[in-house]
């Protein structure tokens, strides 16, 4: 096990933030996102020796993450939120505006079905190919394409997102 740690530690250090961001888009909650990433990594660790020989170990970890999230959403109680000590530092910038965007995007994402949200986040945010998304979600590439199309249409029709996208264009 210890011999596997260096490669795994490097992977965690390099990718945990990206994984957390994806997890936030799925869950809409940083505490849950952190929990989700940590759980996926805990599950991946024992198989790391096998995983690291794959072309892209991250695909496997994302798959574990998606499966874990899927299991959590089926459970009535999603487990505890991780502990937090007294905050150490203050946020900077225009937090109110940031929160407004976050609320709008989170609300719009939550209105999508679980699969639509997963496809959209992996495809748009993580920039995975259709084939890679299909591998993560264990479904045909055609399903990814059709799900993506429906998710995009629904998202663009959502006034909260449409308004923000319009402002970005301006």
């Amino acid at each position, binding site marked *: 096990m210890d011999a596997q*740690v260096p490669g*795994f*530690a490097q992977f*965690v250090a390099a990718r*945990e*933030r990206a*994984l*957390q*961001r994806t997890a*936030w*888009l799925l869950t809409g*909650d*940083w*505490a*849950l996102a952190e929990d989700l*990433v*940590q759980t996926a*990594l*805990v599950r991946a*660790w*024992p198989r790391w020796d096998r995983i690291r020989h794959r072309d892209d170990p991250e695909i496997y970890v994302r798959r574990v993450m998606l499966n874990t999230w899927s299991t959590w959403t089926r459970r009535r*109680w*999603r*487990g*505890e*939120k991780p*502990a*937090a*000590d*007294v*905050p*150490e*530092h*203050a*946020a*900077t*910038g*225009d*937090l*109110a*505006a*940031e*929160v*407004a*965007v*976050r*609320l709008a*995007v*989170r*609300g719009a994402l939550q209105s999508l079905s679980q699969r639509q949200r997963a496809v959209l*986040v992996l495809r*748009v*945010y993580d*920039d995975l190919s259709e084939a890679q998304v299909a591998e993560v979600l264990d479904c045909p590439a055609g399903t990814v394409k059709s799900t993506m199309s429906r998710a*995009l249409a629904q*998202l663009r029709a959502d006034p909260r*997102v449409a308004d923000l*996208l319009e402002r*970005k*264009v301006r």
Partner: protein
Amino acid sequence: MDPQLRDLLQTAVGDPPRRVTIEAVRRGVARRRRTEWATGTAAVVLLAGLGIVLPGHLFAPRGSTGGVSSSAATGAPRYYVQTIINQQPPGVTVVRATATGKVTDTVRCPWPKSQIVDEGVAPADGSTFFLACQRSRRAGPQFVVTGTRIYWFQLTGLGRIQGYSLVPGGNLGPVSTFRMAATPDGTQLAIPVTQGKAPPSVLVLNTRTGAHAVWRNIPGTAQFGPADLSWARHGRELAFRVTVTCPPGGAGQCVSGQQWRVLRHPATGGQLASSKLLVLKSQFTGHALGYINDSMITPDGSALIVVALHSPRGASTPGNIDVVKVDPATGHPIRVLLHLNTGNGVSYEFFSSDPSGRFMILDAGPPQGANPNGWIDHGRLALLTPANGRNVVYEAW
């Protein structure tokens, strides 16, 4: 692949507040192995013991015995009580699960014809809450309080209310009250009370014996208007914010204005004027300057937490909200726990904390648009439900 949408998602995501470290993953792996081992062992023991009569309570449903699991004490409280106005006052008070936002129960006053007092729910330990109910009658254009009673209730592991009990000594008579403060063990409750035109006082109720200790203003001396009651030194001292009005002509020792004071022996009762001065608002510096909307003392008494509203340079209306930890000895800020830039103006609902002082809830934001409602988690607001707290009047956990 749709760069605009990707940009938008990136803007929304921001940065994770904490890092997932290899050490945390390692601990998770070890915990998982222990759990697997324990599960396997338990299965063996269960199979071996099938011939033995097992006590029935081993199979009682989880949470049926009441109380939130002790593991919850290490994270944010699992449930919070929320008063929300849907259509018109007085609104509805519910219990919500922190993780999911789901309503698990509704809080109701068990005293017929009474209503929950504004901000009248005080948490004790995450699963025990005190509830102030009052009856009133219309007298001309005003309502007159005809009675106030203090109840307590406990939440089960599933967030259900197990039933209400009148607290010993909880029949307070025709007094008005507002936000109360309970010690973490729930044995003492500090209640700000007013009756008719009499000056305000603080009632300390021993919830086991029902004993009352009253801290009063004495007519003709400096008058204290106590607010923001909070317990310090782990329930041994009671701190409060007060605006002191000195008597005409001025008494020699009287210092007027906003200040924080502490009662060393709250269970004895006496004069509010005999409380010890902690710090004057005029001593505050830096981030703690500005209009103080809310405050509390940390349970160990080592710091004050104040919610300060500031005006940006050159502006006449407040546009910043700072939650600041202040040294009670000097008034100097120790740490800024949260900074919110709200633009031109502030919409402020409330600030509250769990009895441990670790998990603080703030509902405040810009005058228009969403009012973020969440708990302060490493300099950010971890949103609660509803995320837009515009209609939320109060929350406690």
